[in-house]
């Protein structure tokens, strides 16, 4: 077990807390950089998907996990990012510029979606974002001059001043670079005054307000930042799939993103990555498991929905901190062995606090 002896307040703000972290994350970065060497085409593509979903998950995490605002329409931002990327790439613009624009436009849409958050919260906000999700999906389907409507549009490979970065390795490095930048960005955000304001709003809006945090401004900012990050993921998503259509950005995708956040662990950066790994590997595990199940169950179309639903329920009921929370428990158990006590991570008992005045 490691004891960190703090001698300086700045230590609380360090991104890398101790040399162990530096070693393991450094190793992870090296392994990821070398991935094209050790992973085949198939696995490289799967890792790219994990990275894309991890970025999207980080975006939703900023909003739901750290600011405490629920959104059931986040696929809309994925869609905005993807379509901006698709349209601008077709014109031959270099990918860093198009991705910045995808994030920017997505952030603008996010700020608009955030407007209801100034008046409403909780369940009303969830319904507002749900509504926005449907509207954006419909706009993507009907604005045929730009988006080619429900027929969908194919996406060219990323361009960079004449160079065509269409190979899977090149795309992998683009996705990896984006993921690293976004992750560092989010970590930095969380230790800044802004990120602390977000967390204060999550924990108690009224006390945050009393401490002088401008609720409207910070909530809009949270929506915009979250949308920008998800927009970046959308831009990557467009290149990865090479073909996008509005129905990919509907309610099912939004719920998938929520599933990612909840299963990974609400309110942790690790959670976004663990959730993304879960979301990508789950369909394949189900496909593997199909062979061992009786055909009546294994071949049924609804199997995946059942598994997702049961997993979601199980996590909400038994492991509200998600996969990352489970890992923390395992790690603590190992560190303290044999002194781990059962109640160490006990969920705090809370009583239903009425939101009604009456």
């Amino acid at each position, binding site marked *: 077990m490691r004891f960190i002896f703090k001698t300086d307040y700045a230590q609380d703000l360090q991104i890398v807390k101790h040399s162990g972290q530096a070693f393991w994350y450094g190793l992870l970065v090296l392994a990821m950089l070398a991935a094209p060497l050790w992973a085949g085409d198939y696995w490289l593509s799967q890792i790219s998907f994990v990275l894309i979903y991890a970025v999207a998950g980080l975006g939703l995490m900023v909003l*739901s996990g750290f600011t*405490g605002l*629920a959104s*059931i329409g986040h696929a809309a931002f994925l869609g905005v990012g993807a379509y901006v990327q698709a349209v601008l790439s077709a014109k031959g613009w270099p990918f860093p510029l198009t991705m910045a624009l995808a994030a920017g436009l997505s952030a603008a849409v996010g700020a608009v979606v955030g*407007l*209801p958050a100034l*008046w*409403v919260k*909780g*369940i*009303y906000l*969830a*319904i*507002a974002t*749900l*509504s*926005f999700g*449907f*509207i954006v999906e*419909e706009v993507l*389907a*009907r604005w045929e001059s730009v988006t080619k409507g429900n027929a969908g549009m194919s996406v060219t490979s990323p361009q960079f001043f004449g160079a065509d970065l269409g190979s899977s390795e090149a795309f992998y490095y683009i996705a990896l670079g984006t993921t690293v930048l976004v992750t560092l960005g989010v970590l930095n955000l969380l230790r800044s005054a802004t990120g602390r304001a977000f967390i204060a709003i999550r924990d108690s809006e*009224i*006390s945050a307000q009393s401490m002088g945090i401008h609720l409207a401004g910070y909530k809009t900012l949270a929506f915009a930042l979250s949308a920008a990050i998800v927009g970046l993921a959308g831009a990557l998503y467009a290149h990865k799939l090479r073909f996008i259509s509005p129905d990919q950005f509907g*309610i099912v995708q939004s*719920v998938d993103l*929520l599933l990612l956040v*909840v299963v990974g662990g609400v309110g942790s950066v690790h959670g976004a990555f663990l959730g993304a790994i879960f979301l990508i590997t789950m369909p394949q595990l189900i496909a593997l498991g199909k062979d061992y199940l009786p055909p*009546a*169950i294994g071949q*049924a*179309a*609804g*199997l*995946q*929905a*059942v*598994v*997702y*639903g*049961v*997993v*979601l*329920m199980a996590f*909400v*009921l038994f492991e*509200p901190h998600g996969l990352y929370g489970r890992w923390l428990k395992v790690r603590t158990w190992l560190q303290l062995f044999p002194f781990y006590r059962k109640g160490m991570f006990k969920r705090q*008992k*809370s*009583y*239903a*606090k*009425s*939101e*009604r*005045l*009456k």
Partner: protein
Amino acid sequence: MAIVQLLISGISLGCIYALIALGFVLIYKATETVNFAQGELMMLGAFGGLVMMTIFGWSFWLAAPAAVACMFLMGIGLERAVIRPILGQPQFTVVMLTIGVGYTARGLISMIPEIGTETHTLPVPYAGQVMNLGGAVISLEQVAVIGMTAVLCLVLYLMFRYSKLGIAMQAASQNQLAAYYMGIPVRRINGLVWGLSAAVAAIAGLLLAPVTFVHANMGFIGLKAFPAAVVGGFGSLPGAIVGGLVIGLVEAFAGFYLPEGFKDIAAYVVVLIMLVVKPNGLFGGAMRKKV
């Protein structure tokens, strides 16, 4: 006569939304949680009726109450099994949980061979009949929806107004702690509210079945009932009915007068306008959380 026809079809669609929204509001009032699986409960109710009619060979008048009763029990069971353990957790937790319930229900139904994988018609006795009302052709299915909704509203109103159970439910939803001190078994009441809301959903499903069809994804209509509940004010039962009618009418008229595509999102545009203009809905009072 197009107006009358649109009006009738809008109202009948609105009644379905209203019934689903009623389920949301019942649960929201009692437990301050929102059930995202309400549409799936409706789907299960419709399938229950279908199975009883086609496989057991029961008549509609026997199968429909049986399906509603089954869903009532199912609602109570659902509350006991998954909702009660996380009572008092943030709202978002229950939202995710009920989304999970909805996924599971939809998946399980579509796993049943020959029933869940196909689209069925519910053989109701009044299928296909039309009424001619001063030049407007109105199908009996729509009349049944409107009539049944009106009856159900009256029954619920009488129950909440006069029955001991209804008054206990009102008390529990206003202040759980005070109600508990007065000797009301709040937990049992919560279970019964979930049962009641599932039963209302089953009625909605049975009424909707002849108008659309019975299939595993029919629960998605529940997503349109959220706007209805919000427009009416999430904590108000009359509000749910009015909100449902507003959304139904807006949708019917948008489908007729506005370009294609507006029909599907009309409800959502209305709810966003509503949230900006009057966030507490038509019937909701101003609320401010106590510290």
